[in-house]
């Protein structure tokens, strides 16, 4: 004969099993929903490759302190920030190549961000790291580009007035040559202001991109 105590215990265990089964079923459904949602966010079409365009790079030369314009063909996105970053990446790749005329280690990975801003935004003292001005209307006005370099690039940059000046001027000149609306350039290192590039050239001031572009003719 089954005692009353054992009957009650059996009922409790049965009820607990049913509740646990329900909870497990619910958790399974939730996991399935999450999986389905993840699959929906996965890309379903191949990314479009930006068409190759001509970009003018002002390449520095340490031997005679000159900057020569080189036309390179490379894929350029339409977004101004991404476009500027791609162009500067190519410029720094040239400097990182063996037998470079202006050797600087780092390459394209040395440019963290390049954000062209509308001049009007700067006038309202908005923070430096705002979104790029992507609209055509904003692209027509004068803009300030904020170039965010990596600390690794700065640490490996050769120290010297001429070397540092050529690097900054070639970046400013290249930006202005390809994005004429960029008239001023500021530099950050890992998102922060830094006194000098490698002990000499001032990184706290605003550089006039047009002057850097004209420097090509001034240097012998």
């Amino acid at each position, binding site marked *: 004969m089954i005692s009353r105590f054992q009957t009650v215990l059996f009922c409790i265990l049965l009820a607990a099993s049913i509740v646990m089964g329900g909870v497990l079923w619910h958790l399974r459904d939730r996991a399935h929903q999450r999986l389905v949602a993840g699959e929906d966010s996965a890309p379903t079409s191949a990314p479009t490759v930006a068409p190759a365009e001509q970009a003018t790079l002002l390449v520095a030369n340490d031997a005679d302190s000159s900057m020569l314009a080189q036309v390179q063909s490379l894929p350029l996105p339409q977004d101004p920030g991404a476009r500027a970053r791609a162009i500067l990446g190519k410029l720094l790749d040239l400097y990182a190549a063996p037998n470079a005329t202006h050797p600087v280690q780092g390459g394209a990975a040395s440019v963290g961000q390049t954000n062209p801003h509308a001049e009007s935004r700067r006038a309202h003292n908005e923070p430096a790291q705002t979104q790029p001005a992507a609209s055509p209307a904003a692209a027509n006005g004068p803009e300030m580009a904020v170039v965010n370099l990596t600390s690794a690039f700065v640490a490996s940059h050769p120290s010297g*007035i001429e070397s540092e000046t050529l690097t900054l001027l070639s970046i400013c000149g290249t930006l202005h040559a390809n994005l004429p609306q960029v008239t001023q350039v500021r530099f950050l290192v890992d998102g922060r202001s830094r006194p000098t590039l490698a002990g000499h050239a001032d990184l706290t001031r605003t550089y006039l991109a047009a002057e850097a572009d004209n420097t090509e003719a001034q240097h012998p």
Partner: protein
Amino acid sequence: MVASLEISRVPSSFTPASRLWLIVLVLSMSAGADRLAIGQVPSVPAPPPTRFMVVLDAAHGGDDTGGKLSDGQPEKAFTLALSVRLRSLLGARGMQVITTRESDSAVDLNRRVEIANHANAQACLSLHASESGTGIHLFVSSLPPAPSPEGVRFLAWKTAQSAWVTRSLALAGVLNSVLLHAGMTVTLGRTALPAVDSMSCPAVAIEVAPETAAAGVQGQPSTSQLNDPAYQARVAEELAAALLEWRTDAGRTEATQP
């Protein structure tokens, strides 16, 4: 004649004493005008010869070693050696020299500028060295020129050099001329250096790099390295000669000014 014309216009309400003073004043003015008209120079005593002060700023120092030169020597040691050598040469030529550091000590950039600005110098040279490039690199501040310092009462600390950019360019021109005449390779440029941008004097940053001479008779180009004592002495000698010419030019300019 002039006096009589002026006296005839004196109002009759003037007292006799006032008329007398007015006549004396008009007569003295007419006499001065007559002297100037016939080309005589007023007998103003010649101003005492102004001191010619040069500030030498040996860049870096202490923990700030600057760049590393090819033989492992830090830039701070080269700039200090050049500053000491140049100070000696300038002193021998009768110039007063103030240096921002005399030993391997760290000197804050603002302190360097304070020393230069208090000296009220006729030339401020910031001395640097680098392994990149060739010859002597002369840099003037890239700040846009502002009105002359005589007309400016207050100068912003970070852009004080803008009032002196024109004079700094002239100083760089003299340095360039003398160095080129000595057969050295010279590069002129504009840059943004925090110390130079704050100086209120004709200021030029001088960066010394190895000199590669053209192929000579032997057909081999010769290279003068930064650690070559003969090259260091030559650079210092030519810089001293250039400053001597700058002093002459400055004296000539002052003599022509009224």
